[in-house]
């Protein structure tokens, strides 16, 4: 909403700086987004008097002027203007002045003669005959009246005010009008706003005798008011009106259109003027359009209507799209003799849908969408008629056509003083509240603890219902000032503040991952169908069951991710390409699977390692460290996993048969698809599965009283034997002693068959473990027996031989 300071000054005494005003408005809920000078972008231009004009020594078309700009010394200006003479007062741009279009003027030399600046024409100053009649002379602007030399151009032209660009919240459609915003502005300046009275124009005859309005759909059009003006004289509107329109960015057209536009700005109510001669039978019919009915709007465009759209028609044809734009067939032209002014109320949601479907949200439509009200509709109409009379634009007919199903009665609500004070934690008296409401023209009286409020027609946001006290608290709060309410902390019962177990676990997991050298990613949830294809999931894999967005940015961001791998790979790729030197990343994030009801949401932990020192086992080491920290025990790694992983370098991680997730080298094909310049290693774990196996309290285990002995075994086993198989057998061996900390510490594959005595198809693996008893120190015999039992078991179950 643009509020020109000049306009505001018509209603109140402006006694603060624009900046102070903006601050006051801000603290009342109206943010001034910008304070725009009236002559926006013009700086450093002054009035000067031309003292003498001499020919230029080196150029025929240039002249050298000596000018008085009110400084101690006269200045020299070189000009090519031919319309100036000695004694003229003209604008001159000096000392890095800025002109329209960002043009900057510096002192310069023109054909060897110094020039301190430049004389300005109207275009360079961004003005027309509207702001200063006669300035559009094709050359340098010349003042017709006296001004002191050296006066700023803004002062000389009386364009030294500013325009406030004010952001409005959707609950205050009434402030999309000069009247509405000035009401608030006056209160912010501590003054009372007196709404201008509209002079009633009696007119001749009764327009109802010659024109009719029928509303076929009163739900979509609760009120339609109209008056008729005959004997029109279409001409440009007076300068004062053109200036006002230009100040808020509207283009003057002719007196009748300008009147509707001015009323739109003043009262915030969109109006339309029809050429009555083009309305068949002088009969306006407000009805739903027929499917595919065509209307040509004022902008010359063909509009194809549908049945849900509201049409302004006459008995034979459409003459306008309700609330959006008038029809070309009934436009006001220079030949128009009589007009019907429409001021109506249309249902916001209907106008919103029509404007959207026609891809055309006009100024009018925007106002209807934000909400207009029926009392103001009539005011706007009467104001337009007043202006017609004032401008002598035609003969006003008497009477008013008013088809109305809206409730025009004044709303009365009651609010509880004590409740409002409780909501705000203030201690305001009922009288103080009455005074505050009165400051923005809301009449109220206090009866005991009750405020009886007569809600003015323009305050559609104050409702009679459960929220009345809150509505009033909002008004009282902002008028009293939120900054005047002292902050407190909640009183009453004390609360036990705590983190949920899931949040605590997430903290611990993230902290551990960071401690293990990983950087935390937050990848977007949007992925492309190509990503899922590149990851080669099997048909029927749940990860292909992605949620699809109806309105994505594009096909490449059309799905919600079902895996974290893609995002991890993209991050790894970015870091490899940029040679950042960072290769360890993790993310804790949700994935979604489509479902007829709400998509299934699952939280995953994803980890990626890439870089020179990384391989499958460094990633496994990271995960083992995490498991250790979380107390996730007995994790088994078994061959297998998703297709995006390397077929012989991937594993599924389980605890007691419960799947935690997968780990593996990225498949070379996938590495290529994601354009990764180096191998990468990825793990994805189900967050909840991981949580299920966290050891929350670690019970103390008594320290051993008797020493353990350590034994190593080097075994010859089948080439494809996994270390885990051997460990399982060693741990399960019936050795009659405790077997602990079984670990593999060396694997040797012969380079050639028979190498180092290892036969073809075999390899050597070395294990270490501890033997111990709780109640005594083991004897050599016991140890020997235990090792034999282990070896026997290994031989019997795995065919493993002790390496010679």
């Amino acid at each position, binding site marked *: 909403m643009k509020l020109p300071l000049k306009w505001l000054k018509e209603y109140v005494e402006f006694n603060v700086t624009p900046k102070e005003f903006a601050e006051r408005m801000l603290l009342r809920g109206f943010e001034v987004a910008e304070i725009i000078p009236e002559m926006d972008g013009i700086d450093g231009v002054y009035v000067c008097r031309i003292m003498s004009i001499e020919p230029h020594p080196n150029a025929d078309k240039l002249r050298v002027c000596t000018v008085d700009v009110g400084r101690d010394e006269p200045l020299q200006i070189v000009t090519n203007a031919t319309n100036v003479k000695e004694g003229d007062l003209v604008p001159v741009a000096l000392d890095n002045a800025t002109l329209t279009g960002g043009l900057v003027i510096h002192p310069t030399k023109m054909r060897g003669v110094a020039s301190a600046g430049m004389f300005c024409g109207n275009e360079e100053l961004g003005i027309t005959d509207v702001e200063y009649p006669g300035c559009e002379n094709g050359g340098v602007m010349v003042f017709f009246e006296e001004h002191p030399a050296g006066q700023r151009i803004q002062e000389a032209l009386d364009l030294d005010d500013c325009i406030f660009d004010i952001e409005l919240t959707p609950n205050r459609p009434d402030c999309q009008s000069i009247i509405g915003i000035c009401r608030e502005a006056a209160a912010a300046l501590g003054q009372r706003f007196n709404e201008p009275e509209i002079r009633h124009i009696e007119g001749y005859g009764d327009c109802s005798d010659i024109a009719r309005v029928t509303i076929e759909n009163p739900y979509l059009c609760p009120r339609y008011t109209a008056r008729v003006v005959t004997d029109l004289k279409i001409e440009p509107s007076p300068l004062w009106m053109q200036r006002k329109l230009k100040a808020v960015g509207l283009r003057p057209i002719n007196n009748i259109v300008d009147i509707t536009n001015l009323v739109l700005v003043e009262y915030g109510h969109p109006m339309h003027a029809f050429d009555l001669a083009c309305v068949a039978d002088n009969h306006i019919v407000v009805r739903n359009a027929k499917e595919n009915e065509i209307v040509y709007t004022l902008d010359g465009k063909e509009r194809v209507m549908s049945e849900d759209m509201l049409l302004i028609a006459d008995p034979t044809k459409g003459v306008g799209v309700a609330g959006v734009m008038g029809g070309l067939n009934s436009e006001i032209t220079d030949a128009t003799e009589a007009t019907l002014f429409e001021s109506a109320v249309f249902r916001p949601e209907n106008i919103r849908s029509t404007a959207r479907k026609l891809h055309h949200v006009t100024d009018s439509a925007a106002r209807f969408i934000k909400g207009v009200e029926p009392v103001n509709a009539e005011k706007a109409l009467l104001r337009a008629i007043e202006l017609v009379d004032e401008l002598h634009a035609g003969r006003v007919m008497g009477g008013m056509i008013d088809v109305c199903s809206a409730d025009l009665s004044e709303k009365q609500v009651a609010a509880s003083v004590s409740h409002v004070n409780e909501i705000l934690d203030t201690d305001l008296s009922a009288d103080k509240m009455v005074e505050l409401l009165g400051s923005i023209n809301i009449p109220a009286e206090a009866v005991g603890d009750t405020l009886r409020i007569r809600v003015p027609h323009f305050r559609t946001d104050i409702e009679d219902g459960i929220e009345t006290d809150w509505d009033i*608290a909002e008004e009282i709060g902002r008028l009293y000032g*939120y900054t005047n309410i002292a902050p407190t*902390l*909640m009183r009453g019962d004390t609360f036990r503040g705590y983190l949920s177990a899931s949040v605590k676990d997430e903290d611990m997991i993230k902290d551990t991952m960071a401690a293990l050298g990983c950087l935390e990613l937050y990848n*977007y949830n949007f992925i492309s169908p190509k990503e899922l294809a590149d990851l080669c999931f099997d048909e029927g894999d749940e990860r292909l069951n992605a*949620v699809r967005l*109806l309105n994505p940015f594009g096909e490449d961001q059309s799905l919600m991710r079902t895996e974290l791998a893609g995002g991890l790979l993209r991050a790894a790729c970015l870091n490899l390409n940029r040679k950042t030197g960072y290769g360890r990343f993790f993310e804790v994030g949700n994935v979604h699977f489509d479902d007829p009801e709400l998509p299934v949401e699952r939280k995953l932990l994803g980890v990626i390692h890439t870089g020179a020192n990384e391989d499958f086992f460094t990633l*496994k080491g990271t995960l083992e460290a995490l498991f250790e920290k979380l107390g996730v025990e007995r994790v088994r790694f078994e061959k297998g996993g998703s297709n995006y992983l390397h077929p012989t*370098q991937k*594993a599924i991680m389980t605890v007691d048969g419960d799947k935690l997730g997968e780990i593996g080298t990225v498949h070379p094909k996938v590495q290529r698809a994601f354009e990764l310049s180096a191998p990468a290693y990825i793990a994805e774990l189900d967050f909840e599965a991981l949580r299920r196996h966290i050891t929350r309290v670690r019970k103390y285990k008594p320290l051993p009283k008797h020493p353990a002995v350590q034994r190593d075994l080097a075994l010859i086993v089948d080439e494809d034997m996994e270390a885990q198989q051997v460990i399982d057998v060693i741990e399960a061996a019936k050795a009659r002693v405790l077997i602990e900390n079984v670990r593999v510490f060396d694997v040797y594959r012969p380079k050639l068959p028979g190498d180092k005595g290892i036969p073809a198809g075999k390899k050597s693996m070395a294990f270490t473990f501890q033997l111990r008893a709780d109640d005594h120190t083991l004897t050599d015999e016991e140890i020997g027996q235990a090792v034999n039992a282990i070896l026997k078991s290994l031989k019997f179950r795995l065919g493993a031989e002790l390496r010679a």
Partner: protein
Amino acid sequence: MIFDELMQIRAKALEQLEKAASSDELSELNTSVLGRGGMLTAILRTMGKLSAEERAELGKRANAVKQELVERFEARRAMLAEEAERKKIEREAIDVTLPGKRIAAGTGALNPLTLVYREIRDALIGLGFTTFEGPEVEYDEYNFTLLNLPPNHPARDMQDTFYVNDRVLLRTHTSPCEARALKTLDLPVRLVIPGRVFRVDEPDASHSPVFMQMEGLVVDRNVSLADLKGTIDSFVKAVFGENVESRLRPSYFPFTEPSAEVDISCSICGGKGCSSCKGTGWMEIMGCGITNPHEIENCGKDPDEWRAFAWGVGVDRVACLKYGISDIRLIYEGDGRFLSQFK
């Protein structure tokens, strides 16, 4: 006859092609058949002796053969490459049960979003709050309707929404969790609700279509706007420091009434006014307010008994202000040189 010769070259090439066991062999064969000195080229060189019709016919046929062979070479090459890769993959087999390696990998770091989220959260835990979470993909009903934003409400335009279908959307704020909490929890409650939210905003330096929000919700019998002020001020100070001030100024949200925007004194200039705060000395960080009684009623609780206040703070915005991050996209991009700065 020259046409027979052509067919012989074709047959021989196809035969050898199938026999080629490596891509090197294949390349050699390719050169000897299709290369500049290859058989096919050689045969075309003899064309000069032929009649015009024969020449045309030979050209046509030779081209057909050439095209066929190029395709067959390509197919064979792909097959051999796949075969080679399959063998390589077999050779690369590892024992996945061998122990992992722990190597020194430097210090990792949490994302600035996590750091800021924890700071806010932990300040609130001290005030008796608990954490609560809800789904990222949400019913329209929870995201809008229950929060006093019925279908066609103009304020729905304030938040451009990604839709899944006409009932389901990507939540545009963490506020639907308020409805879930009000419906399911015993009152009173003090909740802090973190989560990702989504809006149709093309990414730029200050917008991201995915960002992180933290909702605060306090429902009790006697809470007030003054309590809201105090609570917000306490976590603002926890995140930005004791000397940073906060203020509330009137605004509008459909789910709160009265509503307010929260400004903090500019962390760059300390409130004197600079380019970051557009000379005002204040920076807007979030919206808040007293929960609209309609929302409480919509969620099955009695607004005469329970009063609530709530806020929704953009964690990204706070992180950008706190750490001086000039472009929000850095948070989501994943460049290690950025992420590693927040150790």
